[in-house]
């Protein structure tokens, strides 16, 4: 049996097949595109104003909205305007195709569930491989490149802020832009992915030079 079944990291073709199956599978099952940084935004941001407004409109009774609009029209323009409008509407052929309704936003608690289960998935993998270990660094390479100890932790915190600000500003990260976007040749995702791989490669070489 190959060593990657239980212990070693997966070969590239297995990981690639998984990513393809996962991204397309989520689309087919949920009609949603995988995007993890979006889940952070949904979980963390206090105001989802546009979303709240959309949800209120979604939840509202359409008949009640119609009635309110009709009342307002009667008050502003009188019954003649309404009669005229109804005559016009009856005469006009209704040839507008129904527009596909946009997916309802996932509740915040679903995003939080998804994020928490990423932790659990990582834990199960490490436990199954026998590599789970409570440790306070990211390994000797990270320690050597970032100064070690408290300095390394400060670098992690600072780098984390860049990840948070950057992915929120870009409107996507490795999953949303990288996998979901690039696979469909979406220009903004291609540009974003090329940029973050570019700056990551440049920064990594710089770390090597500085640490030497």
């Amino acid at each position, binding site marked *: 049996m190959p060593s990657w079944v239980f212990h070693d990291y997966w070969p590239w073709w297995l990981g690639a097949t998984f990513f393809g199956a996962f991204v397309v599978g989520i689309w087919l099952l949920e009609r949603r595109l995988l995007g993890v940084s979006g889940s952070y935004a949904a979980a963390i*941001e206090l105001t989802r104003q546009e979303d709240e407004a959309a949800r209120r409109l979604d939840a509202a009774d359409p008949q009640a909205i119609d009635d309110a609009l009709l009342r307002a029209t009667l008050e502003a323009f009188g019954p003649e305007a309404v009669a005229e409008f109804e005559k016009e509407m009856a005469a006009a052929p209704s040839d507008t195709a129904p527009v596909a309704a946009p997916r309802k936003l*996932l509740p915040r608690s679903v995003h939080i569930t998804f994020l928490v289960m990423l932790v659990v998935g990582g834990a199960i*993998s*490490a436990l199954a491989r026998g590599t789970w270990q409570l440790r306070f660094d990211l*390994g000797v390479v990270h320690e050597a*490149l970032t100064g070690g100890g408290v300095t390394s932790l400060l670098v992690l915190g600072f780098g984390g802020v860049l990840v948070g600000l950057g992915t929120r500003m870009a409107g996507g990260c490795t999953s949303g832009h990288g996998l979901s976007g690039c696979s469909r040749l979406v220009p903004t995702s291609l540009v974003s992915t*090329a940029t973050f791989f570019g700056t990551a490669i440049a920064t*990594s070489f710089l770390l090597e030079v500085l640490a030497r």
Partner: protein
Amino acid sequence: MIGLHLRFAIYGLVFGFALARIGFGDFTEVHEMFVLEDFRLILTFGGGVAASTIGFVVLAKLSQIPRRRFNPGSVVGGGLFGVGWAVTGSCPSIVLVQLGQGHVSALATLAGVIIGVALYRPLHHRYLPWELDSCSM
């Protein structure tokens, strides 16, 4: 039909497990990808993009999938994210996978990510003229 929470719990579990099994939660592996010493992870990612393209073309009607407008932030934001990924080994999913693997120091990264996401939206609305974009599922 099983509940929404259960379904997304399963997706999170499967994704976290696979990311860890691929080795994306291992800083050394990620760094070796970025300094072009080891091509396994970049092939995994590139192959994953190609596999998704094939899957979308064969199994889904691509025209029905919403496309996104160009967002100027995808360049500047992507640039900042790349620097952060290089020094932490973490993208937004990976920091959680690292935590699951027992890497307590990933809490520092996670605190940073949460602060970054929480700060961004008000800063954007205060200083930037374009519409803020999100990839929210």
